[in-house]
């Protein structure tokens, strides 16, 4: 059995007396699309936040490519290759789409302050190299027409796309997507789904995503983890999940007379 990309081992996360995550364990296999679903407040975003280091679970361990990262701060996890997008878009709204992506390249920059100030030598070479990477992403996500547009003036669907672009600019090996299609119309959703599948297919990217649109999840996910009240209640392929009584119950409520 190959090394899993990511392992969550008996994670528990508390905020005061509230248990956001309760003894959650699952693993993400290399190269798969794993969807996390569940009702509101089930702990989906808390899971993602624990993976990328925004939250520190009180109990349990998180292993990334076999290496324990439970205590690592978020920025170090980013350099290891974990990138994410947010449920409520978090971009520099006053900057252009291009600058937002370039900013994400910062963790890959090596040049020193003096060279940067003079924009010379390594700085210049690096800038060109980073721009190339960013332009490839712009091409991939079909954002040429908004390259120089200030992000704050873009529509919601396009801002989501810029955010995905920024996550890709980190050149991650694990991509965490928190509701990438929330609030989009059908056409935008289809575009986004196509991009996610293209990233998966072309770069063999491992992707963990949270999504409410069940039709879409069933279409694109390889496996699904279902959370309810901070606990994992099911895990399996889309077909298995659709048959799972615990899932039906969590979504439709208990059947009472």
């Amino acid at each position, binding site marked *: 059995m190959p090394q899993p990309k990511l392992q969550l081992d008996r994670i528990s996360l508390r905020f005061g007396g509230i248990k956001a995550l309760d003894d959650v364990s699952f693993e993400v296999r290399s190269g798969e699309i794993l969807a996390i679903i569940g009702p509101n407040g089930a702990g989906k975003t808390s899971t993602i936040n624990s993976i990328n280091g925004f939250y520190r679970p009180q109990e349990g361990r998180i292993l990334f490519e076999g290496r324990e990262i439970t205590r690592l701060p978020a920025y170090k996890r980013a350099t290891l290759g974990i990138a994410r997008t947010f449920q409520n878009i978090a971009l520099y709204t006053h900057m252009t789409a291009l600058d937002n992506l370039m900013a994400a390249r910062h963790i890959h920059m090596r040049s020193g302050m003096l060279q940067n100030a003079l924009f010379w030598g390594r700085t210049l070479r690096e800038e060109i190299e980073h721009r*190339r990477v960013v332009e*490839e992403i*712009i*091409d991939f996500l079909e954002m*040429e027409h908004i390259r120089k547009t200030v992000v704050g003036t873009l529509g919601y669907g396009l801002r989501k796309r810029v955010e995905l672009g920024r996550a890709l600019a980190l050149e991650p090996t694990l991509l965490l997507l928190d509701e990438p299609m929330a609030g989009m119309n059908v056409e935008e959703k289809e575009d986004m789904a196509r991009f996610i599948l*293209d990233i998966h297919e*072309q770069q063999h990217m491992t992707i963990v995503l949270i999504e409410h649109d069940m039709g879409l999840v069933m279409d694109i996910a390889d496996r699904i983890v279902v959370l309810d009240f901070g606990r994992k209640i099911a895990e399996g392929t889309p077909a298995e999940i659709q048959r799972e009584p615990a899932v039906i119950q969590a979504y439709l409520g208990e059947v009472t007379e």
Partner: protein
Amino acid sequence: MSELNNFADHPLLQPLDPALDTLPKFFLDRAKRYGADKVAMRKKRYGIWQEYSWAESLAHVRDFCLGLVSLGLAREDKVCIIGDNDPEYYWAELAVQSAGGISIGIFADASPQELEYLVNDSESVFVVAHDQEQCDKMLELREAGKAPRVKRVIYWEERGLWNYNDPWLLSFPQVEALGRAYAADHPGAYEELVAAGHGDEIAIFSYTSGTTSLPKGAMISHRNLIYSTRHVVIIAPFYDTDNYVSFSPLAWITEQSLGLSNHVQNGIIINFPERAETVQQDIREIAPATLLFPSRLWENLISMVQVRLSDSTWINRALYKLFMPVGYKVVDYRDAGKEPPLLWRALYRLGDVAIFHPLRDKLGMVRMREAYTSGAALSPDALRWFRAIGVTLKNLYGSTECQTHTVHRSGDVRFETVGPPAPGVEIKIGEGGEVLVRSRSTFQGYYKAPEATAKALDEEGFFHTGDAGFLREDGHLVYLDRVSDLIQLANGESFSPQYIEGRLKFSPYIQDVMAVGGWDTPFVSAIINIAFENVARWAEQNRVSFTTFVDLSQKPQVYALIRRDVERVNATLPPPARLRRFVILHKAFDPDEAELTRTRKLRRRFMEQRYGEILHAVYDGQEEVRVRAEVKYRDGRSGFVETTLHIESLEQKETEAPSHARA
């Protein structure tokens, strides 16, 4: 009226040298001459204009040509090319023609049904398809057994096709590799193929947009294409330092003659935009020497400028308000054949610095020598607007079958005409006011349709355009309408719906219009299609809340807004031709629903049938009408929308009919 053409002795109109009588011969000759030192094409990729020299271009064309030959392409074989404009498109077309084949351009947004018709009608053996989307269409056809002749589909954009693994599909570089292998075994093969070509061979089929029937493949020879460029070039020369932006579909004959044929004959540099959405920006960066837009794109530009301006600073708006009348005034003087007085010229100079030049810069027109409009008639107001900001738009009137018919000359641009016959083109008026054309670029007939050909071409070789018009004493042609679309009103006067539509479309709030009337109807009415973006912006500024297109289109405030434009246009029409009632449609006219042709001309008959219920209500005096319209989605599914449309009536003021107006 050939006495108007004093070009008979012009060197460009002499018989072709057999060494240079096909597009590939010209291409090979230029490529050998220019080599690696001169830029042939640029394509914007990754935000940078990537350059291709003539030597590189030649290598691609030669390799792709020999690759196709090794896959079995023979002389006179047909190859369909479908996709957006890219260097690969040009290369593929020249490669096919180099081998003596015939290329057929197809609009990138063609539906699988349209594609099926074109691929089979032309009997194509290869299809060169842009990307996954087009390959999927072809795979769908093959699954259904509807592409029996097609040997291979070749794509040039790999994205999304990584895991297809279908031997029927080949990538552009794969075919080029086959070509290089073939060349190794057959040295000189490419040059021999090109030399075997002849000017009278067919270069392309250009399918007519089919306003009335199924598209027909007009057979265009190399000679036709070479001369068609020259008919324009004689009065508006091009140089090998000129930049050209290729964004009009190559399925359209004008891109073939102004773009490809111009490229190989005159060496102009072809620039390909990054993506359809960035065309305007890319044009600005290139600032090309010439631009040819269909009329509606020019009109869109005006709407765009007006909308942007209303969002701009007060100082820009004030300058625009201050200097536009100056621009118009100067244009009026020039039209009257007078030099404007010094004061006006000085004011215009100021206006040019303050607003006209910045505007032209924004539109990418600072280095432009020739600006052409074609397709449906452009409203005189739009022509006037562009001249006021210093852009002399010239009408270029033509057809697929005979290419350029007429074109305005510098210093002799008349708003109300489409210009005098182009050099080397003869025009006469036939029965029923029909425009007849004959030139060196008159086509060779419709493919597999001798009857249609006989109808379109008479014994003297004149092409019957189906357009109504008349020649004025100054030699200019006035285009009225399609002969079949002139409409006789109850009082016996005829009017042109297109003219009314053209005037109405000058409003930034109106996207499309269909004017209806005549024969059995007592007055003229119209179905209007709002320009959603602009009306939505207007609604926002005026605090009119709305949810969807359907909702917005039926707001009383929007009706009042559109009504103002209708009244403005009515004031310029003779009373019988005025609109008395109009309806705002709940949706946009859509080529996907066959309401418009791909070049966005209205399909009137079809529309009259489709909107029969609405028109019935309009002429029945009803105030509103419920509609249930079928909508076809891009993927082929269909559904229904149901809504109530309001019918607006206008008071008929019998007075104040301006005597000069004719519609």
